[in-house]
């Protein structure tokens, strides 16, 4: 959409500094860049496919890597690339299906911003295409099971003295901390949303108890952020919202109505039934999924998305960005707030 003409961090016509840096970082002089291609990255990140050839040494051969760096309009609540790379590194070490880290550069002078390089995973992450795939009846539940296994592995990672300050963590019950974070982000908005305020009051009041121990939380684990190849999970992407927190947040986000692409009969990301996800998760995590806690986080997902919609709309309303997409996104707050209101009514009928 607005990709044409947008200023890029990496200058594809001036790649010599990147090649020089890669050679140094990988302790070789035999690396050449055969081709580059801008990949879809959204508004906050910039991803490039790198076709690399290394003539000699232990990594000799042809490689396909991905360079990830920050776009100009990075959301204030997302991690920078290096923090994200830290989370991906933790996940990789725990056996989670993520791209293998290759190199990381903290020096912004090389390409204009810090960046990381990781392996390229073949697959399709396009959510709408996935949920409409005619084969989903055959492999949807199996895929949900694979997602459950990966989530359980992610949530098996807990902070210690060395890692606890490397990623954001809540200073209160995770639910209350998330409400506070949303309120801080919305404080500058001039757009009054009384329904969202009501929902945030409810979410604060009904926040579940802290988990016994904080876990690594992906923070954006949903259909559209994992790669699928031939109906099988190929990799988990987009760790820019990773943090220490309540693992049920990830389960809630994955199952939230707003991330089903309209396929409400398949509550797990528009692809499968809950049992397939929950059973696989419980088997690996060693604990049963608490559906009440997941329900809470599904409501939080709708509220969080409504807040993001308001902030995106503000980029048009007061930020001077003449983007029809931003304006329309701003209007989405209504349907997300209604989803949250419906969710909390159902929660009260079911659990209270």
């Amino acid at each position, binding site marked *: 959409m607005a990709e044409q003409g947008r200023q890029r961090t990496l200058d594809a016509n001036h790649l010599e500094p990147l090649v020089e840096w890669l050679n140094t970082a990988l302790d070789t002089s035999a690396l050449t860049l055969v081709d580059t291609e801008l990949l879809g990255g959204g508004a906050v990140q910039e991803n490039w496919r790198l076709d690399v050839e290394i003539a000699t040494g232990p990594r000799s051969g042809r490689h396909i890597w991905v360079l990830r760096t920050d776009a100009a309009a990075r959301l204030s609540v997302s991690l920078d690339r290096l923090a994200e790379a830290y989370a991906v590194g933790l996940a990789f070490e725990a056996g989670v299906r993520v791209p293998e880290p290759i190199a990381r550069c903290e020096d912004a002078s090389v390409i204009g911003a810090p960046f990381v390089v990781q392996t390229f995973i073949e697959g399709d992450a396009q959510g709408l295409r996935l949920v409409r795939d005619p084969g989903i009846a055959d492999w949807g539940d199996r895929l949900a099971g694979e997602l459950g296994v990966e989530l359980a592995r992610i949530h098996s990672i807990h902070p210690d003295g060395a890692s606890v300050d490397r990623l954001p963590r809540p200073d209160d019950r995770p639910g209350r901390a998330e409400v506070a974070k949303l309120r801080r982000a919305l404080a500058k908005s001039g757009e009054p949303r009384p329904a969202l305020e009501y929902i945030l009051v409810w979410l604060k009041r009904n926040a579940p108890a802290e988990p016994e121990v904080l876990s690594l939380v992906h923070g954006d684990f949903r259909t559209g952020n994992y790669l699928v190849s031939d109906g099988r999970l190929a990799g988990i992407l987009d760790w820019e919202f990773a943090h220490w927190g309540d693992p049920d947040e990830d389960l809630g986000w994955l199952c939230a109505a707003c991330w089903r692409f309209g396929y409400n009969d398949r509550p797990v990301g528009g692809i499968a039934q809950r049992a397939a996800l929950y059973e696989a998760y419980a088997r690996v995590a060693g604990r049963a999924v608490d*559906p009440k806690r997941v329900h809470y986080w599904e409501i939080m997902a709708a509220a969080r998305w409504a807040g993001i919609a308001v902030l995106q709309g503000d980029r048009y309303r007061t930020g001077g960005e003449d983007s029809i997409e931003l304006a329309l996104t701003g209007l989405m707050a209504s349907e997300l707030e209604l989803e949250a209101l419906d969710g909390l009514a159902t929660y009260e009928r079911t659990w209270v």
Partner: protein
Amino acid sequence: MRRIGSESLLALAIKTLRTEIQPVLPAERRYELAMTVRALEIAQREIQAESDAATWQLLDTIYDDGEGTLDMLSADIRTGKVSDETHPELRGLLERFLLSELEIRNPRALKQRPRTSSTVQD
């Protein structure tokens, strides 16, 4: 006789974009066109909407002096000055307010809303 005014012009613009422009547009520009049509349709529904009845009902129920605003209501809910305890009808009013917004912004979302709110066992 058809009047040439905001409603008819919007209807014509939407029709022209769909029937004349969309078929000849390169695939990579179709998303922008879809958003443009959507924006025009929202404007069309806004013009056709009869009133802000749900907004006034919400504000006039909470603020009986007729001086309420959405900014005020948002702040009062945030601080607890207005709540389910002070106004038991608050949630229902907010729901009706959102439904009226969605009739303009995205009527399709209303059609997709579950008839009975989904349970955790869905």
